[in-house]
């Protein structure tokens, strides 16, 4: 299906104060792919994500989302296609109750009221939080907020899910649950994260960003074991690929041992 393609060609963005955000990013993502966008703090991940929903328009280069090139005129269609989950769920939840919040998007899309209720409950069920529907969002726990924030985007049934640090601030079990949920979605997923272990679990492909440019684009497992690449991009190997600090043995021995115990 051609309408799920995200294609960036030589994307540049310079902030109003002259700081370059991203410089010369190009990639092509096709239907159903799960992509991790990784990079150190300030590498340009968030700036890149803000282009994907048209909040920022590139200073130079082109971005194509689905059938539409990203222009002011196409914003509505682009936002319909791309569901964006922000890093801080507090930024995303602003209605008096969880139900209203999840219904906000579908109502704005002009869905009839009866349908909105079905869609909202479906989204809440997918995230496993239908019991929260009448609660005010600001009283939820961090994990609940995250689930609701994702439900509020799922309810608009976007083709492409874009997420900024979805696992940040979650306890290990909530994180694990989220990873399983993400794996079960058949959307095209673009996930920016520092959680490289999550990237290994959820995304088959990774794009490494460093100082506003793409330094590598390829299979997650291969890239995240490339010590030289990671070093150059200011990253570290995912924990599950590092050797056990106690016994000195790692799981996949695809690379030379990194950590050993020195007596």
């Amino acid at each position: 299906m051609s309408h799920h393609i995200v294609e960036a060609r030589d994307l540049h963005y310079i902030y109003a104060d002259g700081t370059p955000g991203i410089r010369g990013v190009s990639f092509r993502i096709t239907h159903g792919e799960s992509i991790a966008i990784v990079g150190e703090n300030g590498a340009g991940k968030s700036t890149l994500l803000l282009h994907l929903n048209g909040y920022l328009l590139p200073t130079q280069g082109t971005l194509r989302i689905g059938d539409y090139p990203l222009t002011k005129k196409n914003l509505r269609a682009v936002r319909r296609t791309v569901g964006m989950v922000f890093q801080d769920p507090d930024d995303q939840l602003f209605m008096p109750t969880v139900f209203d919040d999840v219904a906000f998007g579908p109502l704005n899309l002009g869905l009839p009221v009866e349908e909105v209720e079905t869609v909202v409950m479906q989204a809440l069920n997918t995230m496993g939080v239908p019991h929260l529907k009448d609660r005010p969002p600001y009283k939820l726990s961090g994990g609940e907020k995250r689930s609701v924030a994702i439900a509020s985007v799922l309810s608009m049934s976007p083709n492409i899910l874009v997420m900024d640090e979805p696992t940040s601030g979650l306890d290990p079990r909530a994180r694990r649950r989220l990873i399983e949920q993400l794996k079960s979605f058949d959307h095209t997923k673009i996930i920016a994260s520092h959680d490289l272990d999550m990237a290994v679990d959820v995304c088959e492909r990774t794009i490494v960003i460093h100082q506003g440019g793409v330094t590598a684009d390829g299979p997650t497992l291969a890239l995240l074991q490339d010590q030289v690449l990671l070093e150059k991009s200011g990253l570290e190997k995912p924990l599950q690929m590092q050797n056990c600090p106690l016994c000195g043995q790692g799981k996949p021995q695809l690379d030379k041992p990194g950590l050993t115990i020195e007596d």
Partner: protein
Amino acid sequence: MAKLDKHFFDIGYMDTLSAQQTPIHQLDPRAKLITSLVFITIVISFGKYEISGLIPYFVYPVFLGAMGNIPPVYLLKKLLLVSPFAVMIGIFNPLLDRDILVNLWGSGISGGWVSFVSILIRFVLTVGVALTLIAVTGFNAVCMALDRLGTPRVFVVQLLFLYRYLFVLVDEAARMVRARSLRTFEGGGSGIKAYGPLVGHLLLRTIDRAQRIYRAMCCRGFDGEIRIVKPLRFGPMEIGFTVGWSALFILMRVYNVPASMGSIIMEFFK
């Protein structure tokens, strides 16, 4: 600090109250808005020394609150919070207007005191009704009613954001005050010197945060129009509510109910 947090949740409690399912909550927001506007206009239209004529008007806020299951203590607290404004408006009346207006059990009461009390009663009535209206309708629904009744959208959206960003502002302020108080010890850090940067930062942080929220709203298709799930229907119930109450307000404006009741009782005793 804890106080600030508490007030924040307290304002949010309005939204919780508005999510109830009483018959009053289920009325079309437009009916409640129009009726409350008629109420406020008529209450304001009374002369400056009027007290007795205003008393019967308490029936409307009490009715709304009781039917809408709104805890009276909560509302009274909120009223008390804003009361300084009303008190400031009327506080000089007793000093400026010293002509004796009423004689009560031998002691004269000046016109200033009477008008001061009148201002306070009006304040309780109008602000009380406004607060109750929001508590039984929800702020978003009130804004939507304003929109549907032809208020320019720019104003409605301003109002909506004002309310939303109030939470953002308080939230940011609470965090900053918390951070400051944890690093404040006796004799340092709490003075005016720290306040300047604190307030400046608060503004910048709030603008930043507001922008992120706006971004999130845009992502979910916000275009300035307010939509809510509750279906709008101006049926016989709504017409009855609006016409009935408005007629009563006008009737109570034309006839001073306590005065006529008083004279009836006096007739009886003659």
